[in-house]
């Protein structure tokens, strides 16, 4: 079931009403059944994969807790192998097979690749990482394994975060399933506010931006320069509104039931460096890889040199890229981010010195704006690899976008030409972007919901009604699933 479907609009209030009407002891079961239903609406048979992974990790974690030494390590290894093996089979098998074929052809060996007709189970990467973090935390002795199978199953499969995260940690979510949550007016209205904002970002902004971005990215060679540059910047907004919109709906839905999911975004486009961006963007994934890949790599030996840090950074970000999908474009996306970070580390002192020499450091606000713009530009350029259909398309778009930015400086006539070529309906398109940017600035300065909640009731209601009507009328009617659902 997708969040942006009528099925979910009906499903959520029914489950919420039942949740508050039944005794606390049955609530886990109710949420588990609801989550199972939520999942089987996509492809019913994939519930068995989910069930298998839940059962395997539940028992392995119990055994890990009881064992010590080598056996304990072997059990952890078994859990990792099952999880990564399942992920690898469904997500990476064909990619691996195709690339082996390319290599063997290059070496003039006769090899025909085995290509399986597999459909990736929705949200597989998300619930495998959720499950893995639980087993690793139990192995590290930081978390006691959950005794109740149903509670553990709900931890992995809780429907708001099942198909696109946030990737939860056991110590944040599991204890909440043992708490009793009453009907709380303030909490529920706050959850609904969050859902509303999520829908606005996804349906009004992301889906409309997708119209233009898809048109250009699906035939990039038809366009050049400035059009590609603007489409690239628009994709950055589309991706953010799509994914953070999903996260808002997930967090808001969980909040209605009384659960607090971890935040996944913290105004990432206000970052002043790439490192800060990755602390604010898809936080649950970047912190997961930081905890379970980057730090273990860095701390794997006693000596922590610069080269080792850079190597760990690079590997972590290539894995982030690969996590997104079995395609060289995603690997390149991760590698570019890794290179950005390493370059940022190497040049940190030089850049600070440059700011002092030019006098920029004496104008902290201007300096910050400049850093934000540069960071956003670099991130947008990196997202070219995320969105482009092929590596050659990505190269074409990235290089043309750089020239496009140069022509942007030429004057407003270039922008007018851009709008004409894109066929942009400015009467709707530009105000939507403007509203979003204003909302983000308010969120950055004072907090968006805090600002709304401080208004008089009729202003608040006016904002809610306008937002709902915008969602109901400005969305697109073609199929527009959330981007991250396919990961």
């Amino acid at each position: 079931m997708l969040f942006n479907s009528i099925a979910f609009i009906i499903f959520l209030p029914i489950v919420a009403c039942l949740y508050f009407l039944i005794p606390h002891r049955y609530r886990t079961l109710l949420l588990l059944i609801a989550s199972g239903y939520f999942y089987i609406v996509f492809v019913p048979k994939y519930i068995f994969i989910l069930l298998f992974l839940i059962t395997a990790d539940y028992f392995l974690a119990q055994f890990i807790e009881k064992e010590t030494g080598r056996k304990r390590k072997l059990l952890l290894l078994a859990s990792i192998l099952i999880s990564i093996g399942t992920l690898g089979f469904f997500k990476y098998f064909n990619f691996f097979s195709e690339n082996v074929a390319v290599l063997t052809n290059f070496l003039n060996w006769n090899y025909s690749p085995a290509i399986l007709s597999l459909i990736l189970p929705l949200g597989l990467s998300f619930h495998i990482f959720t499950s893995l973090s639980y087993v690793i935390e139990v192995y590290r002795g930081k978390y006691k394994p959950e005794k109740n199978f149903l509670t553990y199953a709900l931890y992995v499969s809780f429907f708001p975060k099942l198909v696109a995260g946030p990737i939860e940690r056991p110590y944040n979510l599991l204890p909440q399933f043992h708490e009793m949550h009453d009907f709380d007016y303030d909490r529920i209205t706050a959850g609904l506010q969050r859902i509303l904002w999520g829908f606005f970002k996804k349906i009004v902004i992301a889906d409309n931006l997708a119209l233009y971005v898809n048109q250009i990215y699906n035939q990039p060679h038809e366009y050049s320069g400035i059009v590609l540059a603007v489409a690239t910047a628009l994709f950055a907004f589309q991706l953010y509104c799509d994914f953070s919109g999903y996260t808002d709906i997930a967090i808001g839905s969980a909040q209605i039931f009384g659960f607090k999911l971890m935040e996944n975004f913290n105004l990432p486009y206000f970052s002043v460096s790439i490192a800060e961006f990755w602390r604010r963007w898809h936080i649950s994934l970047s912190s997961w890889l930081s905890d379970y890949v980057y730090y273990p790599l860095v701390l794997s030996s006693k000596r922590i040199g610069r080269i080792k840090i850079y190597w760990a950074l690079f590997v972590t970000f290539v894995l982030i890229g690969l996590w997104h999908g079995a395609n060289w474009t995603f690997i390149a996306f991760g590698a570019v981010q890794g290179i950005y970070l390493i370059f940022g580390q190497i040049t940190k002192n030089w850049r600070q010195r440059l700011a002092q020499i030019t006098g920029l450091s004496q104008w902290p606000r201007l300096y910050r704006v400049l850093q934000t713009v540069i960071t956003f530009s670099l991130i947008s350029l990196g997202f070219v690899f995320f969105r482009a259909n092929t590596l050659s398309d990505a190269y074409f778009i990235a290089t043309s976008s750089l020239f496009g930015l140069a022509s942007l400086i030429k004057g407003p006539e270039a922008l007018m030409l851009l709008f004409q070529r894109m066929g942009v309906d400015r009467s709707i398109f530009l105000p939507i972007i403007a509203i979003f940017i204003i909302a983000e600035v308010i969120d950055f300065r004072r907090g968006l919901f805090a600002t709304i909640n401080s208004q008089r009731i009729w202003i608040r209601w006016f904002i809610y009604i306008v937002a709902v009507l915008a969602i109901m009328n400005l969305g697109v009617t073609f199929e527009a699933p959330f981007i991250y659902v396919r990961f």
Partner: protein
Amino acid sequence: MKRLLFMSVFNMKKFFYQLIIFIALIVIGQTIVARYITPYYPERLLLDKYSRDKTRIIYFGDSVIKYAGPDDKDKSTIAEMLSRINPTTTIGDISHGGYYLKIDEEVFKYILKSPNKPEAIILPINLHSFSPGVKGPGYQFEKEIFYLRMPRLVTYFYKPLAIFKAININTVKYSDYSQLPVYYGKEKIGVAGDFDNPYVYSSDTESVRKLYVFTFMQDIDKSHEQLKSLNNIIDLANKSDIKSYVYLTPINFDEGVKYVGLDFIKQTTANAEVVCSVLKEKNIPCLNLAFSLDSGYFASPIYPNEHVNEKGRKFIAEQITKFFLNK
């Protein structure tokens, strides 16, 4: 504990009362938006107006009946020209984005439910509409059919229902449509995807030839779904004592011959005869204007479409008057 329970129940009541008020405001707001600010299918309002005005003749059609070329001095539609020639009658036109009798059938059913029915309908048949192209995603008119079938209040929620996929407005997927067989006469020459690809358009000679073949060269018989709809419309009109004036709209046969050869005339003549034979069985006269105008009367000579210029529209209006209205 009791106090907590009281607060919880009090909060719940407060929440649900507010929710009901909020939903009511949203319904009112959506009604205002869909009725007055952005009506998604104003044609339904137009049909209601025709009924209120007791319009005597309803003229069905697509963009051809409204199109005016850039060089036209008189930009009047065919219905407006007809009204000028026949000042004693009232004519209202209703058009949609492509000749497709299924939508005409739906519109007619809607008209029949209105308090004041017309005395006659004018129904143009375009040989273009027998192309496999009308089976494609863009010609299913799901939105229009939804508007014509549903109660008015429900139609105000068309857009949100479509956004949240509560109604299927993409009944035909391009991937399915692209596999439909395409015939040259009776011989299968490929699939729709070979001829009609929305992502590739070229104006070279071979591409235009393929488009003419795709549009006009398929052999048709009386079981064609367009002709089924035509039969249904005539039957419904007969039952309600409404006259049916049916004509075959001009096609740009000069260009067709140029790109396809004389086969073009043979095939389109045969297809026109099938249409007229269906009308004959219902005792409806067939005004065949398909081959009445040379390419000088058409506004766009390249792509196969039947948009006529001022002279062409005037010709059609005069022929309808002579053949039907002046009798």
